[in-house]
């Protein structure tokens, strides 16, 4: 039994991995379906005498619908799941067991971080695969290159979200406080990105890249955001380790 296996068991036995996979798969299956039939559904329930014309949905609409849902509910689940692993000081007795057996919190943070990122990316991959398949069936195949680039950008964005949770868990003790503060920062980052039109420079912008890339945006537009996000991931993890080592129990 190692700390890596401990974190893997935490995801599997607590069914948190199932929750991650299920959420992304659900939106992967329902997103393109919604895009395909939204016009008809709204038309069917529309006011008599009023005719609403919807453009014919494109493959990009199917993927964008998936990304829109997954980047909110999916991200919420990722943050909650990773906070439950990374806020390891929330219960003192459990923290004493781990902290008195390792030379520094790095040994605890890194496996918890890596396994939770892997779980989140597995969810994104499954959801994207579902969305890709269903979009191809219902609306036509989205461009493969754009899909792969978008999934890669989205994965890096999720890695940032988990790193942010690790950092917040080193600032506050409880699971809910760590998750809540991380979500608040992510929300503010998203608002900042939209308001200042610097979304492609921010980690939250990468999360929506999948939808925009399938709509025709150039993958290179997100490279500045990729660089910023990678730097922020390193800073957040370094901060989590540094603050965690200084914290008293």
């Amino acid at each position: 039994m190692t700390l890596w296996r401990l974190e893997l068991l935490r995801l599997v036995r607590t069914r948190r991995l199932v929750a991650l996979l299920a959420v992304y798969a659900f939106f992967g299956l329902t997103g393109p379906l919604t895009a395909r039939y939204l016009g008809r559904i709204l038309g069917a329930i529309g006011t008599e005498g009023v005719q609403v014309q919807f453009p014919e949905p494109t493959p990009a609409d199917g993927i964008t619908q998936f990304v829109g849902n997954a980047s909110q509910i999916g991200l919420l689940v990722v943050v909650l799941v990773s906070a439950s692993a990374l806020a390891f000081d929330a219960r003192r007795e459990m923290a004493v067991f781990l902290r008195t057996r390792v030379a520094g919190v790095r040994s605890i943070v890194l496996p918890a971080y890596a396994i939770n990122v892997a779980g989140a990316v597995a969810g994104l991959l499954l959801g994207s695969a579902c969305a890709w398949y269903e979009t191809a069936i219902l609306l036509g195949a989205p461009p493969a290159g754009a899909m792969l680039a978008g999934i890669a950008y989205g994965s890096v964005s999720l890695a940032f979200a988990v790193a942010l949770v690790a950092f917040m868990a080193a600032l506050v003790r409880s699971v809910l406080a760590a998750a809540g503060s991380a979500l608040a920062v992510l929300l503010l980052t998203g608002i900042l990105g939209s308001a200042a039109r610097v979304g492609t420079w921010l980690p939250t912008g990468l999360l929506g890249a999948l939808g925009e890339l399938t709509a025709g945006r150039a993958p290179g537009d997100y490279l500045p955001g990729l660089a910023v996000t990678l730097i922020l991931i390193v800073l957040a993890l370094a901060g989590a380790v540094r603050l965690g080592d200084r914290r008293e129990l």
Partner: protein
Amino acid sequence: MIVETSALTKRYAAHAALDGVDLAVPAGSVYGLVGPNGAGKTTLLGILAGLRRPTSGSVRLEVARDRVATLPDTPQFDPWLTGREVVSLAARLAPSTPAGKVDEVLAEAGLAEASDRRAGGYSRGMLQRLGLAATMVGEPSLLLLDEPASALDPAGRREVLDLIARLRGRATVVFSSHILADVQEACDRIGILRDGRLLFQGSLDQLLVGRATPSVELRLRSGGDQAAALLRRQDWVTSVRPAGAALIVGVRTMDEAEARMAGVLAESSARVISVGPREAELEDVFLELTS
């Protein structure tokens, strides 16, 4: 000394949780840290374990940090791990664990049969024993046990005290407790803490000899109230308190008690079963020191 602290102080704002503690724990000893709630026992163990930093003073451990194992007062583990997985993880994180040690400590803790059950279904006593098994599996040189038996029923306490007794000679144990009988039974050295200050440390004999007020234990079949009232009026009697079916009579000197006790009892209508000197117990000394 395997553990030595010098003028160790820990402050939380204006409150001194520890105030100039000079602890000295000989290698191989079972050291009992005694004190009322809030005396600073957990803080002191936390500093020794490296979980807290002292405000001032120093700590010297004659053992590598990874040879120190710590058990909190109410050990908790991820409920979805089995007992064996908890101990296996502790074994893996220890610097070196002999092959077969996991099964050995699980058996020693009486958890062999329950080892494949999840810790979430363990009773409190089983969790405490699981904690001890996880603490012992790496064969640490120094064990820091915070109130290891305080919250257990008598059977659980007995099991934990037996486990600690078996550690004697294999490792140095520092354990805190407010149950004096446990300390008196398990420890060969004692430190008494109150309000963050170490009031005494030494062997149990050093602590008991000459410290507690001499006292006499009276066992009476009847007339206890009248005898107690009469005794309280004697100038050579310092205290009278009931202890179960007996009366504990504190006296200025045993000479005065031997010369005058019989007369007082004869004057009362008490029916006497026995009269005898009472040896000082840790509880007497503890109350004397901490009151």
